[in-house]
């Protein structure tokens, strides 16, 4: 600690250069935090997917429907505990930019399948009793200011009504909470029987099925069994673990994780060059001073430590400010005003951020520090 004032004083030597470098590092870590939160928004569903849940979809594509009659046949398969169906509704609330997921489901099996969606007993009862009833996640309700009892109109883009209109109306009977931080509370679920009876096209078809298996170790065997059951039919199936299904869904946008990793790699490489250049300049300018330090008794390792300490302090200042600012910005809410299912700075990514701060500090400083440590005193004093 007794060397800390020396390290700090050296950083203040060129205040503007230090400030600009710290700002560069700060911006990089704000970007890191923000992109981490966005990556989570796309991938968190994968991490929270149930290990005992499988998804059965059309073998060709997710948008190809499956017959509703498959449900009973799958329920009869040994090892399958529960089957729940769902369909992508794709409606628009007020304007197309107000995107959120809407799905018709059967309330009982659906709520049993997803215990992480928490409803009060009164809300469960109300949904069972209200044919046009819908439940919405608390984040979605908060986004649009919805309350229980509100009537919500959606414009159908895929499923017109039997009467030819595109307008569907739903009554909000429950607002579900997430059991965990990563539970998606941006969705809108309504009753499949209402959907089935009112739709003008696609009668008898559903989007996909969720299965709950008694023994997750038998998932692969059960999946093969089910796909075998429907092989060579007009609607062949592809059965996969829920996390693979969600990942596939997310990948429709692109491999978000890889894209974000690529962006961050470019940002951090640039920051390394900026911070490394700052440290290299700082050492070059102080050749005689560093030589004097060695002359009065500082060892090569001691001088190396001073320069590395300076580099680490530079990175730590920018990194700590950047991560803190990212945390604050993310905690204020997602930039899409609630369209993202999750938006938070995961603790793991925060820890990785701290490790990155250390890495930037060490990597930026190591070459100039080695150069300083190797200074030949007599030569350097003559310069």
């Amino acid at each position, binding site marked *: 600690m*007794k*060397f800390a*004032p*020396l390290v700090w*004083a*050296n950083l*203040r*030597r060129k205040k503007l250069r230090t400030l600009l470098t710290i700002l560069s590092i700060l911006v990089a870590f704000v970007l890191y935090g923000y992109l981490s939160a966005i990556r989570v928004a796309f991938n968190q569903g994968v991490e929270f997917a149930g290990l005992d849940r499988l998804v059965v979809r059309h073998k060709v594509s997710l948008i190809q429907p499956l017959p509703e009659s498959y449900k009973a046949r799958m329920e009869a398969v040994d090892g399958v505990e529960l089957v729940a169906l769902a369909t992508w509704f794709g409606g628009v609330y007020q304007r197309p930019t107000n995107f959120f997921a809407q799905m018709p489901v059967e309330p009982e099996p659906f709520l049993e399948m997803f215990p992480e969606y928490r409803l009060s007993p009164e809300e469960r009862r109300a949904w069972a009793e209200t044919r046009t009833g819908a439940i919405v996640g608390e984040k979605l309700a908060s986004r649009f200011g919805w309350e229980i009892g509100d009537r919500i109109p959606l414009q159908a883009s895929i499923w017109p009504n039997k009467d030819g209109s595109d307008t569907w109306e739903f009554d909000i009977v429950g607002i579900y909470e997430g059991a965990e931080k990563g539970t998606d509370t941006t969705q809108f679920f309504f009753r499949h029987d209402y959907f089935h009876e009112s739709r003008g096209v696609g009668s008898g078809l559903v989007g996909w099925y969720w299965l709950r298996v008694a023994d997750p170790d038998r998932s692969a065997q059960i999946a093969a069994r089910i796909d075998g059951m429907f092989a060579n039919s007009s609607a062949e199936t592809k059965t996969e673990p829920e996390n693979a299904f969600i990942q596939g869904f997310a990948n429709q946008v692109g491999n978000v994780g890889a894209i974000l990793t690529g962006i961050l790699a470019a940002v951090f490489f640039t920051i390394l060059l900026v911070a490394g250049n700052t440290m290299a300049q700082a050492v070059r300018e102080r050749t*005689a*001073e560093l*030589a*004097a*330090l*060695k*002359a*009065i*008794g*500082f*060892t*090569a*390792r*001691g001088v190396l430590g001073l320069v590395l300490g300076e580099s680490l302090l530079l990175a730590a200042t920018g990194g700590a400010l950047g991560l803190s600012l990212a945390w604050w910005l993310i905690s204020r809410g997602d930039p899409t005003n609630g369209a993202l299912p999750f938006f938070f700075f995961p603790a793991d990514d925060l820890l990785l951020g701290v490790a990155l701060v250390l890495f930037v500090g060490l990597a930026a400083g190591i070459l100039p520090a080695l150069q300083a440590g190797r200074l*030949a*005193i*007599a030569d350097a*004093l*003559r310069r």
Partner: protein
Amino acid sequence: MSGDGPLVDVRSLEKRFQRGAEEIRVLDGLDLEVPPGDFLALMGPSGSGKSTLLNLIGGLDRPTAGRVSVGGRRIDQMPDRRLAAWRARHVGLVFQFYNLLPVLTAERNVELPLLLTRLSAKERARRVATALDVVGLADRQGHYPRQLSGGEQQRVGIARAIVTDPTLLLCDEPTGDLDRTASDGILELLGALNREHGKTVLMVTHDPHAAAQARRILHLDKGRLSTEPAP
């Protein structure tokens, strides 16, 4: 440092530099003895090897051949880390251009060698205050080098050199960057450190006026020492 012999004992010292294909012989079998308490001025023309000799005695550079003993210890054979520790403990260095850290105050500059010791902050502060008092800058401890005159900066440099209470002071052109008045002050201070505090002083200078303040003057020319200047 202890012993009855010379404080500095240099035998058959050679130093050669390679400049491209050419080998430059700066010191050529040089012998030198400096008794404890001496104040020796080394004079000579530019390029005669005065600073090189000082660097070798201070362990800042390695000889090509020969031996350098200070206080009875062969410093030419010491590993780098031990040599650095030895310098911190036994040698005070005074540079022509002071080599103070501009971002530190006078007291922080003087404290630098003490950071390498296990002394408490309180003890370090006490020693720094004493050193600054010895050089007559007790009232300028909070000033940065840019706020001090050249003579004052060199006094801070001398305070830094004596703060660890070394036996040997090596001064490389300590008045080379100063006007006459400031030079006289610095030479008087070095003389006082020699006479009153028992420091052995080796001073490289090309200024006869400065050299006249020393007890002994040696002239270095073509890699060899003599008591008389080269014709």
